[in-house]
């Protein structure tokens, strides 16, 4: 006979180990594929994971096969017009081996091997071995946020939290406790009454079934066992005392019948579900420490910053944001744009609104400093700054900005990155970058970005893991 087994509940992810081995082995190729994709698509899409391609040649498993050439015959189905002896042109670009059944050669060397990465895998590779500089996660200041945690069960709560399983356990226990003794007695009496000594197994069996069920329930959670058995003991006492009362009355012949009646109605009176059975999942709020960061995005939006440059800047900011989100539970972003005057704006305005005017870098830096002091005390926030500009600055502005960054901002920051966006490599240094170049602080970094495809390498360069030095 056949055996039929339901395996649907077995482990589903048997191949996870093999998949992980594949990923580990081809990490290099996968990473290359990931960074190539960044050149092509918007970074926000990337954050959802997605498909990557790696060259099939790299992952092929070589086998010995017949190569092309030599003589062979191929048998094909579906002849319509050929006669033997007909000569045909050799089809181009198609190996002769195609006819050999399912020779398995068809994997195709040129095709790329495409597969999907989950968001986490993607980010893992994306930011692989990048490390936040000076990551002293400021959990200090005991920043806490209330978080809900499970804390057992309670007797009252909102219907949405009703634990059906637990409630039914309680009900079952109560039913056994309140009617078990009566059922036993009932079974006994019925047995006596049946003069031909046919044992009425049914009710006995019913009690046993219920008890067996109860044992299963209780096994599932030992903690409730004490409750149930205590309840049961209580109930049995009451049941027995009731029995005793009734026993007084029962000396007569029809006493048995009366008792039977009484027992039956007693059993019937025990409700299937009672209000006292209800159990609710209990959740309590506990304070949890969180690490949080704030990221200041500073951008020059004067006329010389065209869409292309803004796009480069945006990509850089987005990368930084994704990266920070991986390291901190909460990341706030503050957008500051400036021409000759700085203002705090929302994201939409930041990237897409036009504004005209001159350029005063210092104004943005001062505003950042003000906001930091007002809203983000350094002892409870990890503060990051990123500035994007085309580097045009005039007069004393670059020099004063440098001094401000070095003396006022950096002491309170984890890191400050300056990105100069220019469309083509410019021979000479911009005024701002030559001033910034003199900043000597390991929390400060500056790079130049010309093309979309530079963004990711530059980003990696800025954050590649290096021995962390504790800031002074």
């Amino acid at each position: 006979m056949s055996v039929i087994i339901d395996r649907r509940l077995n482990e589903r992810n048997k191949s996870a180990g093999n998949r992980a081995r594949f990923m580990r082995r081809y990490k290099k190729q996968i990473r290359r594929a990931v960074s190539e994709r960044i050149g092509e698509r918007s970074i926000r899409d990337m954050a959802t994971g997605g498909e990557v391609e790696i060259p099939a040649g790299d992952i092929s498993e070589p086998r010995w096969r017949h190569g092309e050439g030599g003589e062979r015959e191929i048998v094909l189905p579906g002849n319509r017009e050929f006669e033997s002896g007909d000569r045909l042109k050799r089809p181009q670009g198609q190996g002769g081996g195609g006819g050999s059944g399912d020779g398995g050669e068809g994997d195709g060397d040129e095709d790329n091997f495409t597969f999907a990465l989950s968001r986490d895998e993607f980010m893992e590779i994306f930011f692989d071995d990048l490390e936040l500089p000076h990551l002293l996660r400021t959990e200090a200041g005991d920043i806490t946020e209330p978080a809900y945690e499970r804390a057992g069960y309670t007797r009252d709560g909102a219907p949405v939290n009703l634990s059906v399983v637990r409630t039914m356990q309680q009900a079952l226990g109560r039913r056994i406790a309140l009617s078990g003794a009566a059922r036993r007695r009932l079974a006994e009496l019925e047995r006596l009454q049946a003069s031909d000594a046919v044992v009425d197994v049914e009710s006995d069996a019913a009690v046993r079934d219920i008890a067996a069920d109860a044992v299963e329930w209780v096994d599932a959670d030992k903690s409730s066992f004490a409750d149930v058995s205590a309840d049961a003991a209580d109930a049995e006492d009451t049941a027995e005392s009731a029995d005793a009362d009734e026993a007084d009355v029962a000396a007569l012949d029809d006493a048995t019948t009366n008792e039977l009646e009484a027992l039956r109605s007693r059993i019937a009176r025990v409700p299937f579900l009672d209000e006292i059975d209800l159990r609710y999942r209990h959740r309590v709020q506990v304070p949890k420490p969180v690490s949080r960061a704030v990221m200041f995005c500073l951008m020059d939006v004067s006329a010389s910053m065209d869409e292309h440059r803004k796009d480069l800047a945006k990509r850089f900011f987005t990368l930084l944001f994704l990266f920070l989100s991986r390291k901190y539970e909460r990341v706030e972003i503050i957008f500051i744009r400036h021409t000759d005057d700085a203002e705090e704006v929302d994201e939409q305005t930041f990237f897409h609104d036009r504004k005209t005017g001159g350029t005063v870098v210092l104004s943005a830096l001062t505003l950042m400093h003000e906001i930091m002091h007002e809203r983000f005390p350094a002892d409870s926030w990890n503060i990051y700054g990123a500035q994007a500009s085309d580097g045009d600055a005039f007069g004393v502005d670059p020099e004063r900005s440098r001094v401000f960054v070095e003396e006022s901002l950096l002491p309170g920051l984890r890191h400050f990155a300056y990105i100069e966006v220019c469309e083509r490599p410019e021979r000479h240094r911009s005024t701002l970058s030559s001033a910034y170049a003199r900043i000597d602080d390991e929390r400060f970094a500056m790079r130049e970005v010309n093309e979309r495809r530079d963004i990711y390498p530059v980003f990696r360069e800025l954050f590649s893991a290096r021995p962390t030095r504790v800031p002074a």
Partner: protein
Amino acid sequence: MSDATNFLSDGQDWTFELLTDYDRAIRQIAVDEFGLDCYPNQIEVIASEQMLDAYASVGLPISYHHWSFGKAFISHEQSYRRGAQGLAYEIVINSDPCIAYLMEENSLPMQALVIAHACYGHNSFFKGNYLFRQWTDADAIVDYMVFARNYVSECEERFGIEAVEATLDACHALQEFGVSRYHRPAPLSAADELLRQREREESARQRHDELWRTLPAATDVDDAVEPRVFPEEPEENILYFIEKHSPSLAPWQRELVRIVRKLAQYFYPQGQTKVMNEGWATFWHYTILNRLYDKRQVGDGFMLEVLTSHTNVVAQRGFDERGYGGINPYALGFAMFTDIRRICEAPTDEDREWFPTIAGSDWRETLDTAMRQYKDESFINQFLSPKLIRDFRLFAIGDDAGRPFLEVDSIHNEAGYRRVRRLLSTQYDRDGLLPDIEVLRFDRDRSRSLTLRHRQHRGKPLGGEGKKVLWHLQRLWGFDVKLETVDENGEVVSVASVGSGG
């Protein structure tokens, strides 16, 4: 109307009770009426993810870990998610009891079809066909795989994932050359295997003696002894030769070679009987379910769904049609078994001339013999009838690299039948698929180099990745490895070699 009470069920959804009912009804027809001889069945219902997992581990319920299975899994998953590929309705394993996986998504008629196909069709083929009987141990394979899995992961712990992976990669590259075609392998047993492996390791440990290393190097070996040719006969089972004679493998690596070799041996019959195996199973699901319908145990709707699916399975597209993917083994196999039955039951004059021994004989006996005693190559050579050649409109194309054009060799006509049949049958021969490579010489006394011989089959050179396989072989061998290619007259055409330095 009264017939309707016979129906096993109506409706699309299956339940475990219904599966049992159908299995019983199918068994009654398959075993009691048609006399199929089967292993007991173990039918397992699984979800689609689990089916993907089963695909990836080459259809076995359990396998050792290796990245290539991960690669297979990823590519199946990818094409399944995109809808480019449906999943098989079932997977069946040549084991005793015969394990068959049924997908939970299948409708009831599909489950019935799959039970008839896998649990009685494939099952009886596994039990009856001579290749499976000789080369596989159905009752031991699952245990053996458990042993292999544990052993591989133990090695990974002891010697590192990379080292194990490198060895397995090399073995996989030579997998097809780990089969002994001409003598039956020793039966598999996981317990024996474990014991034997422990003993070997232990004896190697005991025999190890530091003193041997202090012996002075022999100086006069070279001139004194005429080096003997070893092996005396060329060895076709390359992995076997490596396992037994490689001068450089560590004991655990030998065990890995052995595991891959045993697996290759287990899968060898499947590659040789694709047409027959699928044809046999398809013929039986078709026959059994029709019988079920004739007995009025299932209704019209049920039968229509079964037939739709059956028709898709046995569709054969012409070579110039869209979606042509070679000759469909289901189509060819099904057509051939059906045709044999026809020849037995209602032979024409042509059949009498071509198949004098089976025309008019008992079809069940004839089919049974065909199933037991043939493999694809011989089966086609023996039983492909002119009628089928006409039905499939088969024709042969000659492709000689020396000429600028292809020539139609023969077609489905009186002059061509025999030749088309012979050519098609050689297409399923192992030599048609794999180059003929064997171990020729092991220079035991001097360089320890290994020489292989590739005998060209009608001038066909070795495929592009041949050199890479040689690297893998060299990794297992540890010393110089040489591959001589000879033409049909035995003249050396080319020599490729990989030294122990590279």
